[in-house]
């Protein structure tokens, strides 16, 4: 009897492990839908509208996947906004000459190179990743200004397939599956978690900590490159950024990443990022639907970000937070 109990116990845990997180998130989706539906019955939540919320959330979820590799290690990348701006602008320029090949390859290459640079500078300078990436973001923004001379770049309508269903969904799904594959089925995934859990122990186990930190930045850059394809295709135009005006683009992907971190213990972080971004998209659109001014949306973004981070990070008592 006791043996049977002890062999069965993990099974129930396993079910909880696998599906409870997703169920909780879907419940949250339902609750938020219901709230805004009651507040703005005419303007919110029809099937068509839900699809359009999903469309924008897919873009951010791809970026959130990239950022996940960074945040699991306890690092940050605040250059992804600048990366998106620069990659999208280059995508526009090259799409004019090479069509879809330019639209797809150029932002991925650009994004990945930016990730590589972020990683190398972070490792070599031994300063916090947040500072490194903000500093570099200013440089990437300036490059975007040099590249365009301040002109708005417009993507020709012939190259806009990734801005609508089904191409955007297919590309995003590819990115999600790739992330999940890397996390679950490669050494990179294991080592990323190991470094995030205890860098010292990981080092002792022969994990090359610096190498895998650079790898994480490269992966982040790669997925931000994919995000750039979706961003420019959806918005069809991009203006160069300066003075950290790209900063605002960092937070929506970051919020999804934190959903992933919070629900990681249920074993499906990528699903959590996607549903998390959808929830955030619903809330933004919900406020638009009830007619709240856009400043209120910024308040909501800021408060939601703080709330999510507070819930997902459990600092050790007495630890110095800077």
């Amino acid at each position, binding site marked *: 009897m006791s043996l049977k109990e002890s062999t069965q116990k993990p099974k129930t845990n396993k079910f909880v*492990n696998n599906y409870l997180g997703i169920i909780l998130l879907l419940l949250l989706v339902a609750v938020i839908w219901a709230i805004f539906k009651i507040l703005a019955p005419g303007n919110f939540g029809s099937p068509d509208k839900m699809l359009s919320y999903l469309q924008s959330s897919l873009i951010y979820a791809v970026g959130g996947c990239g950022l996940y590799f960074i945040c699991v290690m306890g690092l940050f990348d605040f250059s992804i906004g600048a990366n998106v701006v620069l990659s999208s602008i280059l995508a526009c320029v090259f799409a004019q000459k090479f069509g879809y090949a330019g639209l797809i390859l150029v932002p991925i290459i650009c994004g990945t190179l930016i990730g590589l640079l972020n990683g190398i500078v972070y490792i070599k300078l031994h300063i916090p990743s947040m500072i490194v990436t903000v500093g570099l973001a200013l440089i990437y923004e300036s490059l975007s200004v040099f590249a365009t001379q301040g002109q708005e770049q417009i993507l020709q309508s012939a190259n806009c397939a990734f801005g609508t269903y089904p191409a955007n969904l297919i590309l995003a799904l590819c990115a999600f599956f790739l992330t999940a594959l890397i996390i679950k*089925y490669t050494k990179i995934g294991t080592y990323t978690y190991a470094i995030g859990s*205890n860098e010292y122990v990981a080092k002792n186990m022969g994990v090359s900590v610096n190498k895998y930190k650079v790898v994480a930045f490269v992966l982040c850059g790669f997925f931000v490159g994919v995000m750039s394809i979706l961003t420019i295709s959806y918005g069809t135009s991009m203006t160069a950024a300066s003075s950290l005006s790209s900063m605002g683009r960092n937070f929506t992907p970051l919020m999804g990443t934190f959903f992933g971190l919070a629900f990681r213990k249920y074993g499906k972080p990528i699903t959590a990022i996607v549903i998390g971004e959808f929830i955030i998209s619903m809330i933004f659109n919900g406020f638009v639907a009830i007619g709240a001014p856009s400043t209120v949306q910024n308040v909501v973004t800021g408060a939601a970000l703080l709330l999510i981070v507070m819930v997902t990070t459990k600092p050790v008592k007495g630890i110095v937070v800077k």
Partner: protein
Amino acid sequence: MEEVILRAENVNKSFGITHAVKDVTLPFNKGEIRGLIGENGSGKSTLMSMLLGIYSIDSGKFILDGKELNVNNQVEANRNGVSIIVQEMGTLSGLTVAENIFLGNEDRFVKFGIKNTTAMNREAQALLDKYGFNRIDATMMIDNYDFEDRKLIEIVKATYFDPKVLVIDETTTALSQSGRDELYKHMNRIRDEGNTVIFISHDLAEVIKYTNSISVLRDGVLIDTVQSSDVTEDDLKKLMVGRVLDDRYYRTDYGEAVSDDVVLSVKNVSVPGEIKNMSFELHKGEILGIGGLSECGMHEVGKAVFGASYDRTGEVTLADGTPINSITTAIKHSIAYASKDRDNESLVINDSISDNICLPSMDSLRVNNILLNKHLNEFANKYAKLISVKMVDVNQFVSDLSGGNKQKVVLARWIGKNSDIVVLDSPTRGIDVKVKADIYALMSEMKKQGKSIIVISEEIMELLGMCDRILVMKDGALSGEFMRSPTLTEEDFIAKMV
């Protein structure tokens, strides 16, 4: 003739001025369980850390199976047939059980960059089943298991590849009886297969019972290796101690009465995971020592008294009944605290000596609410000179000073604050003999002025030499109390702490 599998040859290691392992030459035989014992800081863990590549070796070498062992981390050590079960948590959160077992060794499951997670899980589960831990599921996150189960997983991780040498570093204290039995079972199995186990423990009865031979270290020096069947616990304790009080440094007075006035009382104080139900009183003009093994919770007692513990329960009160529940109230009521972790918890390293000394006394140094550098420097200079801090001037940065002089800055700060109750945690840790003597003299001087001192120390001789009364702690609780006496020996003390 027994066959030697591993030999340490003239191994040395120093940390700053502390010579932690001194010229140790020690052979280990094939097919034996060897106990390794010694009190705090005797060098057992340092020696083993060098074997595993966690610390570098200053000089000397380890020879395994006739070849010099040259490893830089645990995984490389594993590949050479040496593994360890560590004292603290050796598994990583956020990974599955299987990922933890094979961490650093994933390559055998990787083909074309893709890890065969199914095969890895299957193999991990097969190992767990083989060890009789089939209630542990290899695919689960390790966070779902408690400390004890995680230690069992570490046993699998450290032994599944049949290491030639397995080091077990003080693991048993964390385990319940059934967990210990599992561990003993696998120790015996490894020995019976012709391999070697090095077993570090403070539980001497356990060491005698489960080992074939025992090596004793003291102050980084190998004292002796004895057959377990020939010795008693008392014999081992005798080998572990052996130093005599050196009255050149310590107090020489005995039998002076301590005042009956209680200045601080600690009642039923507990801190989760650290100390359990501690109660004691501190008298006026008393030097009260607290000692025990490094992990016995004594360092937390200092924090608890200073109001710096988290989740503390119970009461710390002054003579007039004032409760001390926060650092600010503690300082306000003349309590001082010097942490064991001098650089991180006591000093503002990247700041001047002057600022460090004046920090808690700023209020009294204000003139019309203005702080003048002149006043701060005069104040700092006065107290730094008083206890002869070696410095260029008070504007020198603390980061430039030696360990001993840093500690003097900490003491100058609290003397300047004129604190009546002074808690000193490991006041002479990593400090050379000359400054040590200065600090002891200072403590005697403070005692004369009627100040009360709590000294928390891992050095038994220091406690015996300086304290009016010594509390001994074991596993977070009080386990004994000694009054100052010339006949009190290290041995009496060790009997209560292990």
